């Protein structure tokens, strides 16, 4: 189990706590994680895809090639990176497309052969480490904690490429969360988008925040203590977005946010500081409930 950690932009630059937690948890579970030096933005599907899909593919191919050079698979902690890189990998299985991309990569001395694989960190946890082993490693079960899972759109779709079961009624992450002893709750419009994707956050912040507010309201109504996501960008939208909503006077009590590996690390006995949980804007109030 050897993975090159593709950090992307949001994780290392805005929420380094996600990176810290992921590295600590994977190491503890015996997964070898190496740095993917020289990686660029995945590139962000909404930003770069809007500009030119062909260049989006070439940028992604360079990142895939960096991992290929290391003979490693890629692990990601952001649905945007997951979407871009996995989709690019898929598109580049086609030899004609790959050769066209390689013509450009040749100008910087690179060539991608299609030999890496792109995995989300939750896949590494559930499929490489396994549910049985994870359960054994839980030292501090998060009993009584009500978790509102937010999947994020690109985690599930296109389902033919992602392969996490039904995108309309998924259970993949709920099962992972419940291994920690916490309860994964149901709430209205659970699969609704956080609102940030497609460049909407960048282009029309008010609209993106409307989505976030609606989700947060539904989560509060269902009694969620914490929002757990597998995506650094959704994490960013919920954490920073709720702060923005508060400063506009649109939200009174926010719901704290945790990345999936931060939650698992907590259950494995690591401290909130080690897991970077205080790195979020919204104070992790739920900790009182489990200490």
């Amino acid at each position: 189990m050897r993975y090159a950690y593709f950090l992307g932009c949001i994780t290392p630059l805005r929420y380094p706590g996600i990176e810290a937690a992921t590295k600590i948890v994977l190491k503890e579970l015996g997964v070898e994680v190496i740095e993917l030096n020289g990686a660029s933005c995945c590139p962000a599907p909404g930003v770069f895809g809007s500009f030119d899909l062909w260049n989006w593919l070439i940028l992604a191919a360079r990142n895939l090639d960096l991992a290929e050079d290391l003979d490693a698979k890629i692990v990601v902690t952001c649905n945007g990176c997951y979407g871009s890189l996995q989709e690019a990998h898929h598109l580049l299985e086609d030899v004609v497309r790959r050769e066209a991309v390689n013509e450009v990569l040749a100008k910087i001395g690179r060539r991608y052969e299609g030999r890496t694989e792109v995995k989300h960190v939750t896949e590494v946890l559930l499929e490489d480490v396994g549910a049985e082993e994870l359960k054994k490693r839980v030292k501090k079960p998060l009993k009584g904690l009500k978790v509102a899972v937010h999947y994020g759109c690109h985690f599930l779709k296109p389902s033919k490429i992602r392969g996490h079961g039904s995108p309309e009624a998924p259970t993949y992450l709920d099962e992972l969360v419940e291994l920690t002893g916490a309860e994964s709750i149901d709430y209205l419009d659970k699969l609704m988008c956080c609102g940030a994707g497609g460049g909407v956050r960048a282009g029309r912040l008010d609209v993106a925040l409307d989505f976030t507010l609606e989700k947060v309201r539904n989560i509060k109504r269902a009694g969620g203590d914490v929002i757990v996501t597998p995506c650094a960008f959704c994490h960013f939208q919920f954490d920073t977005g709720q702060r923005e909503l508060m400063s506009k006077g649109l939200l009174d009590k926010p719901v704290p946010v945790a990345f999936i590996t931060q939650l698992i690390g907590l259950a494995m006995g690591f401290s909130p500081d080690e897991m970077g949980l205080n790195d979020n804007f919204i104070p992790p109030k739920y900790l009182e409930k489990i200490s």
Partner: protein
Amino acid sequence: MALVDLLTLAEEKPELKSKVYRELLELGLSTPDYCYLCGRCSGGCTSMRLLELKPHEIAALARDGFIEELVGSEIIWACAQCLQCRERCPQGVSPVDIILKLRSIAVSRGAELPEELSKMMMSILDTGLIQEPREVVGRSGRKYTREALRLPPAPRPKDMAAFSEALMSTLEVVLGGV
């Protein structure tokens, strides 16, 4: 002006339409010709809840050749790229990819990208990453930097200048064709 109003002024542009079709086919997607207006895409569209985006309308308008009108419409910037339309379409049409194509035509025409979006894009071409690192000051006044979390300095690609140049050259080919 609403899209439907624009239609009365529309003029078909077959070259533009075939360009969009060609690029969708290159991505392995069905062309809008396969759309039979079932509306499954719009039924699940994230942006239709708050805005007026209707992916089935986009597919139908593209099929009927109203590319110019779509390119000039603000509605194409409302898509959250949730991929629901692509997932749900029984015909393999992907309205979201049609929208991305329309956006890139708009950009190549010098249409103004939303400001934050173009900043991010320039940042990627410049430094490889979307933005600069920030310093987080926690509620206790402690700084949550990468160092405090015992992480190495934020990584940066080193060959970005040469790479951007290579990308730009293909861009000219791409943009020149519109």
